[in-house]
């Protein structure tokens, strides 16, 4: 192997990389907050909601979980404009991630709700709370705490999956790597560097989620 | 000549020393009950004899087989002592017969027909020959524990370690298991049992060992230990029962 590794380009192209990191972080931040919120609503609907809503949510969840994120992204970005819904690359990427994480977190959170002891619902009812009030004040937080590790893993998976938004020219970290490799022909180095950055981002994201978890669920022993 | 020699055995979990120098010699055919509060180290001692826990200091040998922490020595030792657990630990994916045959075939390389003959004989001994093809989850707790005893006996050990073998059983099932143990004792099997069944210990055992805070606090024949406890700790322990 006569290949000489060369990382000198890093100096020249670091603004692109920093910008790419920024977009990737923005995408996952918006995706996580909105996606988990959507997931909570859907989980409520599937576990405790009105009968007519359940199959609708179930169809959404199954459809998203059984198709590739790339195709969801293409459908939203290339397909929806023919219905008159024109979206920018970033908007499409954001929506795709929210929709995707929404479906996965729905299933995860639903499992947490279903693991709630029956007595919690009965206790809520006996205190004259409505079903929704019981859900909101009694069931939700312990349910989230129960599945927080699984949910955190899913957020990391979605962040790593976001690499494909570069394919609709959203200027994320992968887009930067592609840009650099097309300019410098240093494909291997460009991808190694961005892979390492993704790894660091994944580790940081996991820690951030653990901290957020500690903040939302200060009591460890609550079940 | 002792069958089991336990000399100066010490065992710690991190900072916490649970066995603080245990000496105990067991003669062939002896039936020994180890009693004491939970946390006194009695289960740990039993598990050390079988090499399920590694000891920090001291030595243990069974009929000349030294307890050393490598697979060859452990295997040699474990062929001599069988162990029965509180939670039975039958293999759920095998039938009763399969449970009793497996280690004969795998460890001792006994041919299958012979292993089966032995298995049927051992199950007969614990009164469960008719359950040969049943699966563990189809049996009561008492029956499962008797299968576990048959499984250990099939390896033809010279001693058996029993770790609170009736503690996980419903009260009405305790007697059938103890009856099997009583019979083993009568046949001359060397037994070391951690137990809470004081009446059984009094009736069957040749010696009682009272453990307290990681030490052997009092030893003696049951009539002495139960009738004339020497230390306040043992008095208090017996008073609780």
């Amino acid at each position: 192997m006569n290949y000489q590794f060369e990382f000198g380009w890093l100096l020249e192209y670091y603004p692109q990389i920093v910008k790419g990191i920024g977009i990737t972080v923005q995408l996952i931040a918006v995706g996580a907050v909105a996606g988990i919120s959507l997931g909570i609503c859907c989980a409520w609907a599937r576990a405790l909601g009105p009968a007519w809503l359940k199959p609708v949510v179930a169809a959404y969840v199954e459809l998203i979980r059984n198709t590739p994120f790339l195709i969801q992204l293409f459908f939203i970005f290339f397909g929806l404009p023919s219905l008159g819904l024109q979206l920018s690359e970033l908007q499409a990427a954001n929506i795709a991630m929210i929709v995707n994480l929404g479906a996965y977190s729905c299933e995860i959170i639903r499992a947490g709700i279903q693991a709630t002891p029956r007595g919690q619902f009965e206790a809520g009812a006996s205190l004259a709370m409505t079903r929704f009030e019981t859900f909101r004040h009694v069931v939700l937080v312990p349910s989230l705490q129960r599945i927080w590790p699984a949910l955190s893993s899913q957020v990391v998976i979605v962040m790593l999956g976001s690499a494909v938004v570069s394919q609709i020219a959203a200027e994320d970290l992968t887009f930067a790597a592609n840009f650099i490799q097309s300019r410098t022909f240093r494909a291997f180095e460009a991808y190694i560097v961005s892979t390492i950055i993704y790894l660091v981002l994944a580790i940081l994201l996991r820690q951030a989620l653990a901290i957020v978890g500690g903040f939302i669920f200060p009591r460890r022993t609550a079940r | 000549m002792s069958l089991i020699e336990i000399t100066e055995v010490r065992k710690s979990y991190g900072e916490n020393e649970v066995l603080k120098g245990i000496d105990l010699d067991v003669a062939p055919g002896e039936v020994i009950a180890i009693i004491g509060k939970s946390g006194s180290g009695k289960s740990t001692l039993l598990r050390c004899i079988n090499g399920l826990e590694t000891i920090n200091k001291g030595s243990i040998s069974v009929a000349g087989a030294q307890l050393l922490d490598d697979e060859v020595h452990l295997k040699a030792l474990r062929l001599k002592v069988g162990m029965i657990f509180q939670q039975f630990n039958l293999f759920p994916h095998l039938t009763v017969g399969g449970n009793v045959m497996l280690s004969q075939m795998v460890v001792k390389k006994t041919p299958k027909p012979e292993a089966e003959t032995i298995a049927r004989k051992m199950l007969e001994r614990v009164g469960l020959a008719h359950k040969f093809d049943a699966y563990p989850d189809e049996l009561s707790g008492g029956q499962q524990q008797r299968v576990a005893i048959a499984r250990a006996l099939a390896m033809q050990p010279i001693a058996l370690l029993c770790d609170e073998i009736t503690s996980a059983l419903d009260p009405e099932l305790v007697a059938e298991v103890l009856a099997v143990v009583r019979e083993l004792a009568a046949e001359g099997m060397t037994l070391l049992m951690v137990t809470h069944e004081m009446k059984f210990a009094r009736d069957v055992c040749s010696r009682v060992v009272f453990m307290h805070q990681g030490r052997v606090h009092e030893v003696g024949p049951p009539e002495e230990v139960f009738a004339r406890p020497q230390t306040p700790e043992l008095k208090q322990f017996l008073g609780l029962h």
Partner: protein
Amino acid sequence: MIEFTIWDILRNLLLATRWTIVLSFVSFLGGGIVGLGLLFLRISKRKSLRSLARYYIELFQGTPLLMQLFIAFFGLGLFGVDVPAWLAAGLALILWTAAFLGEIWRGCVEAVAKGQWEASASLGMGWLQQMRYVILPQAMKVAVPPTVGFSVQVIKGTALTSIIGFVELSKAGTVVTNATFQPFTVYGLVALIYFALCWPLSKSSQILERKLNVAHRNH
């Protein structure tokens, strides 16, 4: 300009679906074999081997599959080999799948009760015998539902190989879209085909899991 009927589009997509299926199958099988190796490293008694497997798994689970594909595609080229897309795709997917399957299966092995290890040890079995006769038979039962479930991730993962130029269902979708200018229909159909491949697997994984739980409760 040629008019494309829905049937024309569908036929082209289905032809490409063959390659999605072949690639998924190869990745799953290869990933399973490598994953089994990883499992044994991960639960071995040697700490160095355990760490090695853990780093491997962290690396492949902590970086995007797309990057792994890029590195396989461009990185192998550095050795002077001209890497065809199918090779890079297969290689990257196998290594990626192995990391996940290895970790799933480790969980299954660890789910076997500690008493099973102790009982088999007390009967004189060595580590390999314990694994072969006592632990793995039980772990395998628990492993079936999540393993089937993960096959769905593998099928969806193959979609990314279109980006390095492997022609399968997703790539065909893009090609057909460029020819027909009907992205809504084409990507809709692509999604439905993926759904038809994945949903039966997801569903059977769920059903198997439920059966297993019922069986467990009867214990």
